[in-house]
């Protein structure tokens, strides 16, 4: 008969269905669905001549080199062996349906008409992974099997390997491969392959931990710790090395765990070399990170004010420094309007602490036709120093009519009067006041 090939679904009927099928008929239909699918067959109508052991007329289903059953009779009746509502599913992608009839369909001399059968088939995804497991249980050889992990997909499957192993060219087997392992999470676990079981031989492993700048990596070696060792020679067989900031923290083997390591770095490399033999359990590291911290800022003088001082400063924290009133932020010889310093990723402040220098107003301006004298320390021009301007009386007088004007060195570094004016007073000539006016005594 004509095989049904590569259809995902369809129907199979007896010849001339739903009319009575012919006598002396024998046909086998092959149903083939695409690779990766199984064939599922369900009978919707079944009306064949019943007989003991389905000796006369029958439908036989076979798949995977096995007979799945031989059926005759009618659905819902006892005589014969009807398939009822039973589903037939192949393990492979092929199924055979054999239809056989004898020379007649008579009972007690009366010809009886049987409709035959109507069956639907469909392609259903094959779970190759489960099939492989079953094959192991059944000790059968069903092609290659995934060595580590099997993943089913519609119409197919694929294999993968556990961390530290690499899928080989045959797409099924795995080999240890740990020469370029990268860890970028802020915390995690790293261990030798198969830990705490014996690690594989001939490995050249490099586990790199790379986290953001401003973080430091801490390593904690967990128990058990076991690497092949020798009593006289230091780590001749297998050895674990830890590198950070370009320097080695040491070479480790034996059963004594290195414990806890503060690497003070955001980049750590753990190297693990094994020889061709050994059965030690290996090692496991729990790595964590913490944000780098800067030294606690300290004021250089008692006039410096660190705004909102925190008990601890870490990467990206910043501090703002101001001065008490009358003092000026100074960095080296330069006066600053403001000061902010940021904690850097290397744990240092991006600029050193400034100091606060008392504000100096400079020498007071000379008053034309007048003078000034210090009310505070002579020549002292710093914050809160006071001077008194006077005009050369009686020939000059201040514009505002006052005898003098007191100016104070302000926090802004300028001399200001009691009204906050920076402009110095003016001494204007006094008119019409001769010191020796005409006096005529003779009357």
């Amino acid at each position, binding site marked *: 008969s004509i095989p049904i090939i590569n259809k995902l679904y369809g129907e199979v009927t007896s010849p001339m269905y739903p009319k009575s099928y012919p006598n002396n008929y024998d046909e086998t239909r092959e149903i083939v669905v695409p690779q990766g699918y199984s064939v599922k067959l369900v009978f919707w109508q079944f009306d064949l001549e019943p007989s003991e052991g389905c000796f006369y007329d029958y439908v036989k289903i076979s798949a995977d080199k096995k007979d799945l059953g031989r059926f005759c009779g009618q659905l819902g009746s006892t005589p014969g062996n009807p398939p009822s509502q039973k589903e037939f599913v192949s393990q492979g992608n092929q199924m055979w349906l054999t239809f056989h009839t004898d020379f007649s369909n008579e009972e007690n001399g009366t010809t009886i008409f049987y409709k035959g059968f109507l069956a639907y088939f469909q392609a259903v995804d094959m779970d190759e992974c489960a099939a492989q497991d079953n094959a192991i249980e059944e000790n059968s050889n069903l092609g290659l099997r995934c060595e580590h992990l099997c993943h089913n997909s519609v119409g197919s499957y694929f294999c993968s390997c556990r961390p530290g192993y690499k899928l080989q060219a045959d797409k099924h087997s795995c080999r240890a491969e740990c020469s370029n392992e990268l860890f970028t999470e802020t915390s995690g676990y790293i261990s030798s392959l198969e830990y705490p079981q014996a690690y594989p031989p001939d490995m050249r492993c490099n586990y790199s931990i790379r986290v953001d700048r401003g973080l430091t990596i801490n390593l904690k070696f967990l128990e058990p710790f076991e690497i092949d060792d020798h009593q006289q020679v230091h780590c001749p067989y297998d050895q674990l090395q830890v590198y950070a900031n370009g320097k080695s923290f040491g070479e480790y083997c034996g059963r004594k765990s290195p414990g806890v390591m503060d690497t003070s770095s955001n980049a750590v490399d753990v190297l693990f070399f094994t020889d061709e033999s050994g059965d030690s359990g290996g090692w496991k590291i729990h790595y964590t990170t913490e944000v780098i911290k800067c030294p606690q800022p300290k004021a250089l003088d008692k006039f410096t004010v660190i705004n909102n001082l925190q008990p601890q400063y870490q990467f990206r924290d910043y501090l703002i420094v101001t001065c008490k009133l009358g003092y000026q932020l100074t960095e080296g010889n330069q006066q600053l309007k403001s000061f902010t310093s940021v904690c850097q990723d290397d744990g240092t402040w991006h600029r050193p602490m400034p100091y606060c220098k008392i504000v100096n107003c400079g020498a007071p301006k000379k008053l*034309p*036709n007048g003078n000034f004298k210090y009310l505070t320390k002579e020549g002292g021009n710093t914050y809160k120093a006071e001077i008194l301007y006077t005009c*050369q009386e009686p*020939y*000059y007088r201040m*514009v505002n009519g006052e005898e003098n004007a007191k100016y104070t060195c302000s926090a802004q570094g300028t001399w200001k009067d009691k009204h906050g004016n920076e402009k110095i007073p*003016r001494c*204007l*000539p*006094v*008119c*019409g*006041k*001769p*010191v*020796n*006016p*005409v006096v*005529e005594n003779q009357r």
Partner: protein
Amino acid sequence: IIAGKSAQLGNFPWQAFTNIYGRGGGALLGDRWILTAAHILHPKDSSSLPNTSIDVFLGHTNVDEIMKMGIRPVRRVIIHPGYNQNDTNNFDNDIALLELENSVPLGPHLLPICLPDNETFYEKGLVGYVSGFGIESQKLSDDLKFVSLPMASSKNCQNWLNEKNSKQVFSTNMFCAGDKTRKQDACQGDSGGVFAVKDESGDRWVATGIVSWGIGCSKGYGFYTKVLKYVDWIKKEIGES
């Protein structure tokens, strides 16, 4: 000054001595300005000569001494725009300002005079002092002289001019002072000096007039520029302060 007295140092500390087209006077305003008459800079009946030096002296009552103290260089000359040099008989607006190159240091012998602020300084009979280094008994004086003169009424001034058949204009910007019965007056060389009146209420001396013109000397009244009329102009030119 005719029939005057010698001034002592400090009597008239505002008195300036000028030498331009001839001897003249002036008065110190503030510490940088000289108030004077326009006609000593642009004299009537003669054309102003270019590059005429304007020599100003301050600070003494003796001509030799005051000149020893040095010329006070002039930065700017401001003639009142209403003054007409070519109108021989009209001394209207006879007022000018000289801005000195440098402020002068004030002291007991060098002080400014005040400007008037009301008409009470021009009441008839109010006595003021006129000072100057001008003619005294037909000859120039070596020392500063002064004379006290009473303010005359405008009516008397005009009548006197009429009696003299004078063609001189007597404007409202002028006043006259003097006493017909006395031979006291300012004279040539005193021009530009001021008529100073004591403001008793404010205890200060005020320049109410500028020596301007007269018909001869000591023959009646002398005529003065009425400063009150020019206070606004002066303030505008030298600044309010």
